[in-house]
C-alpha cells in the first residue's frame, strides 16, 4: 500500500484555472486586487521582487508581513474570495 502516486498532470479541456506557477499567480493576484497599479510598466519579475506590494497584501489579509512570496501567502492567494479589489487605484 506504499506504492508511489503517479503524478501525471493533465490539462483538462475547458479548465479555466490553468496550472500557473506561483509567480504568475502572484502577478495576476496583485494586479487584480489593486496591490499593483495596473499601469505600472515594470516587468513580471519586478512584481515578485516588489516586496512593498506583497507587504500591503499580507497586511490586508492579516498575514505575517514578510514582503516575500512565502507559502502562506501563496496559499492565501488560492483561497476563494470576493472579487472587489482590496485597494482602489
Amino acid at each position, binding site marked *: 500500500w506504499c506504492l508511489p502516486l*503517479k*503524478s*501525471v*498532470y*493533465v490539462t*483538462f*479541456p*475547458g*479548465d*479555466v*484555472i490553468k*496550472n500557473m506557477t506561483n509567480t504568475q499567480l502572484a502577478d495576476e493576484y496583485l494586479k*487584480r*486586487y489593486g496591490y499593483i497599479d495596473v499601469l505600472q510598466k515594470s516587468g513580471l519579475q519586478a512584481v515578485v521582487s516588489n516586496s512593498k506590494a506583497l507587504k500591503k497584501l499580507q*497586511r*490586508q*489579509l*492579516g498575514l505575517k508581513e514578510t514582503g516575500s512570496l512565502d507559502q502562506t501567502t501563496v496559499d*492565501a492567494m*488560492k*483561497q*476563494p*474570495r*470576493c*472579487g*472587489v479589489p*482590496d485597494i*482602489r487605484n
Partner: protein
Amino acid sequence: YQTFTGDLKWDHNDVTYRILNYSPDMDASLIDDAFARAFKVWSEVTPLKFTRLYDGTADIMISFGKADHGDPYPFDGKDGLLAHAYPPGEGIQGDAHFDDDEYWTLGSGPAIQTRYGNADGAMCHFPFLFEGTSYSTCTTEGRTDGLPWCATTADYDKDKKYGFCPSELLFTFDGNSNEAPCVFPFVFLGQKYDSCTTDGRNDGYRWCATTSNFDTDKKYGFCPNRDTAVIGGNSEGEPCQFPFTFLGTEYSSCTSEGRSDGKLWCATTSNYDTDAKWGFCPDRGYSLFLVAAHEFGHALGLDHSNIKDALMYPMYKYIKDFSLHHDDIEGIQYLYGPKTGPDPTPPEPQFTTSSPIMPTKSTPSEKTTTVSTTVHVDPAQDACQIKEFDAITEIQKELHFFKDGHYWKISNKGERKGPFLISEKWPALPAVINTAFEDQLTKKIYFFAEKQFWVYTGNEVFGPRKIEKLGLPSNLDRVDGAVQRGKGKVLLFNGENFWRLDVKSQMIDRGYPRFTDSVFGGVPIDSHDVFLYKGFFYFCRENFYWRMNARRQVDRVGYVKYDLLKC
C-alpha cells in the same frame, strides 16, 4: 472597517433590490430566501429597509453570470473569485454579481428542496435509508419514470416521507414556459436533442425545449442542475459517469488524479481518454447567504476589512451560526446610523380570562388614536372550517385572513396563529371588511369595507372616508381586492374591473378602470379577494385560489385552506 472614497452611501433608507435571474444550483425559493436573509443582516443594525421589486430598476440589481458576464471584471470559473459588487450609486453602481461557475449551496453540501411528493417541499435528508440501502444523493431507484427523488427524513422505510429532486424532467426555470418540464427529444435548428444543451447560447446555461419542436414553438426553459451534476469543466450539469476510464485506469468514484490542485473531478462519459468530457464533483459549495451578505455590504458602501472574522474580510469562510462582527456593525452604522425606535411589530396582547372587556368602539373621526385593551377570544374557533374569507392580505410579512370580526395570521414559517379580534388591533374597523393592503413604502394599512375605507398608521387611524374620495366611481359598492405594484401604485379590484391608485396622491390614475381579464388572463373575474403574496398575485373564489406569477401566467391553482392557511 473601511468605506469607499468619499463615503459612498445611499441617500435614502428604503433601499430596493431586484433579482434578475437564478442559478440552476438551488431552487428559486431558496435563493430568494438567502438574499432576503442577507439583507436582513444589515437592516437589523441600521434604519435601512429593503424592498424587493419584480420589475423596473432597483437600487441593487442582483444577477448570476459566468466568466465574461457583461462588465469589465469577468469571473474566473470555479473557485477563486466568487462574486463582486459595486458601491452605491446610479446604473451598475450598487449592483451585485455572483459567479455561476461556483456551486451555490447553503454552505454544507447540496441544498435540495423537494417538490410534490408528501413532504410539503421539505429539504432532502442525506443520507437516507431506502429498502435497507443508504443514499447520499437523490436516486431514481424504485421508480420507472426516471424521476430522481429523496427522503426528507433519515429513514424512508420507516417514515415514508419523500419529495422529488430538481431535474429537467420535473420542471424548468425562467425561459418562457412557466416551469414546464423538458420534452425529449426536441428539435432545435433541425437537430434532435435528447438532453439539455448549451447550444445556441454563449452564456453556458443549459436549456431545453418544453415542446417537441423549438424551431416552430419557441418554447423553452433552463434546466435545473441535478444534485449529482458536475460543476464547471466542459460538461456542466451532466452527471458523473461511473465507472469511467482515465489514463487507462478505471475509476468508480470522483478522483483528483491528474490534477495538481487536488480538486475532485469525474468524467461524464465512460471513457475520458477518448471523449475528454469532465467536470468537478459537487462539494460543500459556497453559502449563497454568506457571500451575498458580504457583497451587499459593498453595495451599501462598505469596503474590505482586514479583520479576519469580519464579514467584510475578503476571503470566504463558512460559518454555521453567523452573526455580524462588531467591526462590520461599526462600519455600517458609521454610514447609516444605528437602528432607531422599538421593533415595528408591537408584542401580542396576553389573553386573560378574568374580565372579558369588550372593546368600546371609538367614535370614528378623521384622526383617532387607539388604546389596546385586553379581551377574551375563543381560540377554539377553527379557521380551517371557514369556506370563504372576507379578506386576505400580507401585513408585516405575515399573511392575514379576516372573517367576521376575527383574523388569523400565518408566519413566514407557516405557523398559523389566532384567532384575534379585529377590534382589538384596529378598533375603528367594522367586523366585516372586504379587502386590505399594506403600503410597502409607508407601511400604512388600508382597509376597505363597503363604500368606506380607513388608513391605519400604527395605532393611529384616518377615516372612515368614502371610497369616492379616491376617485372611484360613486356607483361602486365595494373593493374586492388590492395588489401593490411598487412605486406607490396599488391596483384595486372589483369584479371585471380594476383601478390603479396612486397612494401618494390618494387618487386613481387616469385611464382606469381596465378590464381584469385584459391584463390578468386566466383568472376568475368574480374573485372575492385579490392580493399580493411573496411576489405572486392571488385571485380567490370560494375556497380556491389562482396564482399568477410576475409574468402574468397562472402557474398554480389550489386550495386556500391547504396551501395558504396551512390546514
